[in-house]
């Protein structure tokens, strides 16, 4: 199992890039060859690669929000223990 994980670790980026490419190719196939629109529920799904773009942007937005949240709420690990004898976790 360790050997398999080592191999996977070495190739994970390549697998990711291939996966990104194949997922776009897959959309080309089902749109223009398979015509599989039956299970679409939303108008935005008609935009090519919308899930790819949305996933990428959403991830960036979440990380940006994490930076903002960190700036506001970051404290030392003993924050709840500093008021020894008074604080909640004293």
């Amino acid at each position, binding site marked *: *199992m*360790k050997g*398999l*994980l080592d191999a996977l*670790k070495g190739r994970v*980026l390549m697998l*990711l*890039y291939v*996966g*990104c490419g*194949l*997922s*776009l190719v*897959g*959309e080309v*196939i*089902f749109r223009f060859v*398979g015509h*599989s*629109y*039956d*299970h*679409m*529920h*939303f*108008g*935005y*799904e008609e935009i090519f*690669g*919308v*899930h*790819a*773009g*949305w*996933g*990428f942007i*959403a*991830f*960036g*937005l*979440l*990380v940006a*929000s*994490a*930076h*903002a*949240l*960190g700036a*506001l*709420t*970051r*404290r*030392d*690990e003993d*924050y*709840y223990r500093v008021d020894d004898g*008074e*604080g*909640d*976790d004293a």
Partner: protein
Amino acid sequence: MLELLSELHRLPGLVLVLGALVLPLLPVTLRRVAMVALPILSYAQLLSLPEGIAFQVEIMDGLVLEPVRIDGLAMVWGHIFHIVAILASIYSLHVAERGVEQLAALSYAGSAIGAVMAGDFITLFVYWELTAITSVFLIWSPADKNLDRDPAECLRTGMRYLVIQVSSGVILLAGALAWLSARDWDPEALRFGHLHSGSIFDAELGAQLVFLAFGIKAAFPLLHNWLQDAYPKGTHTGTVVLSAFTTKMAIYALARGFAGTDELIALGVFMTLFPIPFAVLENDLRRVLAYSLNNQLGFMCVGVGIGTALSINGAAAHAFAHILYKSLLFMAMGAVLYKAGTCKATEIGGLYRKMPWTAALCIVGSLSISAMPLFSGFTTKSLTMSAAGEAHLTWVALLLLVASAGVVEHSGIKIPYSGFFSKEEGKKITSQDIDGEAPLNMRVAMGLTAAMCIGLGLYPAPLYAILPTPTDYEAYTAPHVVGQLQLLFFAALAYVLLKKRGLYPKEERKIFLDSDVLYRRFAPAIARAGWRRGLGPLWTGTLGLGAGLLRGSLGTLYRWTGPGGMFGRSWTAGGITRWSGAMIGFYLLYIFLWS
């Protein structure tokens, strides 16, 4: 009440609650057998019960309890609660010490099973509170002292957890009584069924209180922080159990009582989103999973809020799959905690070299929670997304996609990467510091759970068949599979690019304030300031005045009755006679004038 005693054998979960009491008395081998046998026995008992109300018990004049209701909705939870109880028992078989932990775990599981089968408010309330009381011992347990668990801190955390959980039960009881009172104590109103749909602001007080009680245990925003506070403080086996029951029991209760309640959609969407930045930042990987749990509960709340047959199926299926993959992830992090002594991302690195099986099984959990096709999250979360589509809730679907990208971040990448594959340089605990894999029983439990995650992904039909409304839903359509793959791969691509450019937040030995700061710091600070500036001086002044009055009264009393006082000194016989005569005369005059 005698009727209830004669029907005890038909109460689901009671085998676990009572059986658990015997566990500490058994020798270690027998205890291990019993730990697995009891949930199996309980499951067999549940499956033997016929559908419908099993029996009724009259507790007061006309007031009838229905402690056991077997139907499609309850049985989804009945199945999965038993399955996870069996898996969690296998996972904790290596714990040889005779502790309160095993007792608490099984009785907690039994209480949660009893709660989802409860047909009336009183039974629900009893089990609701029992889950609180039993589960707190998984946090208070003195075990794992050497594993990054400070007993004193666990005690305080457990106390906070207990107060919040018990408060939920008290509010539930108040709501149930208000509900009954509004119906002139009609015995039929005691039955726990659908309470409200539409806006919760239009609901009556009783329904609103019950909604609040369920919301506390479902970890609604601002009511949520007991979860991230308490779950990382459980023992390495206890947190697996904790993660499975309370919150999903609350989702069941919401599905039973509040399907179609509008606010659940907005609350659910918010719940899917707000924990993600916290999970990105958090250092303790079990706390990351606790935030992730909150995020997943949001998806279920959306399903309940939409309120259609498909969406309720979605919530139920998601709860079923979620319990499995979340348990698997908590098991993997429990194994890391057990072997490395900590599961803080800043402290561990390269553990996959010594724990390859645990790492591989953790990846299965990560792929499942990320809803990767062929894994259980994909075949279950899809129902809720489709239900949002059928209801034309475009903004809901778009925001749930954002949340799905977030799941990739915290549970899909961060947990396996930080837990097993991060660099060893600069880390306190590396593969050199641990002596090998997690114990066999832990790996077996993780393996079985992982097999179910894959099985439900490859062949979800058996799960679809037991949903409240059996369905032949088709998850594997080309647009759906491709869309999901794009979302996952490009979210992961964003992670890689941000990481390479140094824009992704590094894990730090820090904490990040959440809503618990309100009751752990702000409220005590306000109370202290109020005491110092207002109530304190008032109290001191009142005490001073009281003491002054008391001192004055005692002084006066002493002056009159002390050695030198009028009533204290020795009187002559003549004096006594004069005063006695005067008093008798005064008394006779009084009777004469006023009688």
